[in-house]
């Protein structure tokens, strides 16, 4: 019988330090054939990353007591399997990096900041292939070419901070390829990247896998991404594998409600539903029948298209520009270089509508968003709110306006004060603006808000660390809505979330908007997300609005290059 490259039998990982002990991986069993590309899908906390780290035996370096059991049989040479679990440290080191390599989720932090990228690649080459300096450099440059970095020589001598996220991920892939591994484990390699970069990296991985004849274990929370690169997919939930199957059939005809949910919850350009399907929509009904994706879709219904209103615009920006000055170059130079982050932008937001603002990183969309709520001053142009000019107001007048203009930020982890209970965090704006009198009344209002965003009243006294990313973003939304703003800016508010959680938060935002009728600007790099949530879409590039259109229409006939790229990226 032909042995698989890697065979996992009854792998179980328990973190014993937490009480009660957490079973992160619960008796899973799967195998990867030589040359096969296997996908592992699941939400955060489902145990997929722990599985990958177990295979690499990188869990050995974690503190705390971790109980591991089961077998991980790796095909060392034809007919000879060895159990990775039982290998000694230095035996494992001959496999790690050389035969099984891994790339990680956060390319931003995964490279040593004080070492040149080239040295980080040659280090691996010297280790695995015993090359001398010159040969290693040559091999590293070849690898850089293979991972399709534009200026190979520049990348070789660059420090990580000089490269973009996508480029860093390419460097990491080059490092992983240095030992000619038979198995490449890719743990959410594109999650932290912009969608159009994501597509490029996925294409690269696909090509390299073929070229090197590697097997790949691809881990992601996004079923769409996984099915784009994998032959076979495992779906993981709470440490268990709940479904497995070939990529195509799994995506179209999943048996487990969880898998169906994962497959359906990602917004699609072609289909604009009223709400996004969530995992809970696929739970079997009382008679045990599981709704099919079509049933769910028809139950939800299509979203209505945007229609022009005659109302006066709530917020209007005319010829708005914002520029940043870089630091002075020389001691006696007058001024640094001026970078126009926002360049002559005209924008109107009507009451109750949502505007989607899309663009790549650095296109100026965040700057524009901050300017609209007065967090950054306009350098030229006019900003008016309810017909009244507000761009020339002083700080004190802004203070009173602030309650009508609120913002939800990208990172739900760092935008909540870890020392404050979430109830107090939500109550604070009420106190500052004295909208509700009396502590008890304020608390009642906070509880009301918590329930509005789908949390519970007894969460009031908990601190942020007790919540998951999705819950935290709900808290941030509740905090932004405390003051019943007329205008809300969501800056990449769902980008850091798993697709399934993203669907829940997007639905929540939509429900809240139906209920509270605020206007919204939704900033994202993902056209599909914006296409779902927004009524109108503005595409931004290099500080300018290059294209605009109605959601559900814009993608059909993109006029500008950047829009075309965004459309392509969301199709994966």
């Amino acid at each position, binding site marked *: 019988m032909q042995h698989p490259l890697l065979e996992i039998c009854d792998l179980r990982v328990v973190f014993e330090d937490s009480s009660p002990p957490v079973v992160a991986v619960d008796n899973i069993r799967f195998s990867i054939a030589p040359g096969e590309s296997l996908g592992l899908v699941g939400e955060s906390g489902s145990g997929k990353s722990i599985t990958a780290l177990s295979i690499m035996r990188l869990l050995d370096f974690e503190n705390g007591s971790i109980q591991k059991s089961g077998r991980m049989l790796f095909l060392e040479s034809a007919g000879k399997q060895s159990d990775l679990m039982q290998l000694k440290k*230095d035996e494992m080191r001959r496999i790690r990096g050389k035969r099984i*390599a891994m790339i990680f989720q956060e390319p931003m932090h995964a490279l040593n*900041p004080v070492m040149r990228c080239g040295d980080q690649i040659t*280090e691996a080459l010297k*280790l695995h292939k015993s090359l001398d300096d010159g040969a290693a450099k040559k091999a590293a440059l070849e690898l850089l070419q293979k991972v399709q970095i534009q200026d190979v020589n520049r990348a070789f001598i660059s420090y990580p901070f000089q490269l973009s996220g996508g480029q860093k991920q390419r460097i*990491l892939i080059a490092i992983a390829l240095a030992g000619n591994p038979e198995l490449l484990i890719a743990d959410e390699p594109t999650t932290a990247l912009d969608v159009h970069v994501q597509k490029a990296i996925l294409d690269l991985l696909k090509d390299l896998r073929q070229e090197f004849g590697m097997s790949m274990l691809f881990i992601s929370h996004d079923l769409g991404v996984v099915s784009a690169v994998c032959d076979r997919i495992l779906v993981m939930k709470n440490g268990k594998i709940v479904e497995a199957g070939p990529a195509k059939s799994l995506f179209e005809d999943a048996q487990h409600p969880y898998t169906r949910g994962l497959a359906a919850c990602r917004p699609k350009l072609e289909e604009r539903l009223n709400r996004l399907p969530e995992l809970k929509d696929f739970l079997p009904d009382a008679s045990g029948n599981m709704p099919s994706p079509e049933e769910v879709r028809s139950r939800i219904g299509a979203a209505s298209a945007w229609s022009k209103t005659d109302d006066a615009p709530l917020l209007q920006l005319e010829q708005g520009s914002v520029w940043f000055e870089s630091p002075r170059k020389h001691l006696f130079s007058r001024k640094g270089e001026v970078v126009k982050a926002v360049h002559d932008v005209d924008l109107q937001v009507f009451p109750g509508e949502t505007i989607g603002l899309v663009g790549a990183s650095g296109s100026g969309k965040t700057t524009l968003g901050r300017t609209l709520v007065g967090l950054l001053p306009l350098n030229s142009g006019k900003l008016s709110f309810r017909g009244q000019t507000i761009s020339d107001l002083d700080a004190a007048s802004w203070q009173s306006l602030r309650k009508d203009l609120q913002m939800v930020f990208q990172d739900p982890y760092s935008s909540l004060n870890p020392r404050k209970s979430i109830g107090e965090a939500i109550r604070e704006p009420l106190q500052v603006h004295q909208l509700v009198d009396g502590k008890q009344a304020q608390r009642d209002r906070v509880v009301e808000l918590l329930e509005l965003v789908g949390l519970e009243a007894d969460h009031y006294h908990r601190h942020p660390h007790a919540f998951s990313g999705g819950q935290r973003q709900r808290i941030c939304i509740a905090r932004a809505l405390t003051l019943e703003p007329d205008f809300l800016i969501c800056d990449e508010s769902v980008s850091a979330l798993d697709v399934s959680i993203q669907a829940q938060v997007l639905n929540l935002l939509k429900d809240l908007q139906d209920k509270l009728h605020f206007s919204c600007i939704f900033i994202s790099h993902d056209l599909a997300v914006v296409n779902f949530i927004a009524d109108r879409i503005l595409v931004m590039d290099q500080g300018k609005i290059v294209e605009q259109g109605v959601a559900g229409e814009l993608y059909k006939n993109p006029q500008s290059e950047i829009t075309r790229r965004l459309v392509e990226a969301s199709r994966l």
Partner: protein
Amino acid sequence: MGSYVLRRILIFIPVLIVISMITFWLSEKAPGDRVQDRCGEGLSRSEYNRCARLYGLDQASFYFSIQPKAYPDSLYRFVRPNRIDRIKSYCRQTGDWDAVEQWEQNLWNFNEALSALPDSIDRQLGIDIRAVYTNLQLTRDLKRVKQELSQLKAYADTLGITAFSTKVGALTAASEPLFSVRNSRAMYIPRFVWHGVDNRYHRWFSSFIRLDFGVSLKDSQPVSRKLGHALYWTLLLNGFSFFLAFLIAIPVGVRAALKVGGRFDRISSSLFFMLYSLPRFWIATILVVFFTTSYYGDWMDIFASIGMGSVPDDASWMEAFRIRAGHFVLPVICQTYGLLAYISRQMRGGMLETIRKDYIRTARAKGLPENKVIWKHALRNALFPMITIFGAVLPAAIAGSVIIEVIFSIPGMGLLMFEAVFANDWPVLFAGLMLGALLTLLGVLLADLMYAWADPAVRFAGGTKSKGHGGN
């Protein structure tokens, strides 16, 4: 980068000027007679004045002064602290400078009347009369002045020398306005008086920037040479001590971080913290007592107890090393042991933080052996807090340790400054403090530059750290 360094160095100028003013002001406020500090005690009046003029001590102390309206413009001309104090006091009480001036002049010149007294007078009476004169000079109480004057008059009557009685009469007459005038409001009206560039601060500071630090008042040696010697020994001692401290503490901190709560971690931290909590003066004294005498057995007389030893000119370098080492070991131990806990703790913390970083996981996933992961990848990143510590201890290395240098009689900065304070050796003090300030500023700059050098993100962004902005 170059312009950044230049900008930082230009900032030194105002900082040093302000420091020089504070130092100078403190020396002004310190008790004592500057003329006596310079030329010794027991000077005659003319010697005193000559000395004052020679060293510019009869000039104003600063470019300007802000003082009560009741005070005279050029109070500084009276030089003697006692006189100035007396004049101020009477001005405060009467608010009338003219009256005070008249009295002061008469009182001052009365000295001549005293010296004109013939030797033949009754000895006790002579002593009594001089005592009255001294009292008149020392008192600040106008009632007492009145009493003393009547006493003096009584003595003059007893003496019966007409010329002296006339002088006493004149003195009494000059005192009259003091008792009648009351203009205390003048005390509360401030007045700005401009003294011009003929002032002592200007004189001192301008020679200072010409690198002329003057001579020590104690032994008339050039201050620059004294400071040079002291700085040499201090830097040698502290440089060696700190180097040793970092050399020991960094590996210990790293090892402790690798197994937090392990045996090595527990033992090393408790040992270092125990050392940390032992006072240095005590340890130094104990070491001197036990290891520099043969009192507890001949074999314990290992090290020299005092100074840095003297090396004969014809000694080989081995011989020289042996002599110096004998003097160095104990002070180095004292300077080092207290730092160990602090440095190793910081290193442990930095390492713990670094080791959790994603790039360490990347390095391990590469298959690197663990010691390479730690010493090549983690260490450089974990060393950043060390630079901060280095910047913090550098000024201490320059200032020297008074305790250690006094106990071991090491002729370093600490001991030099310590002795200068007690000897009122102002030129040494000024120059020492200014040098300390300058070197401290340079030390902080050096630490910042090391930071920039160690962090490529700073090095390549032209001196200012570029923050990743963009938010998406």
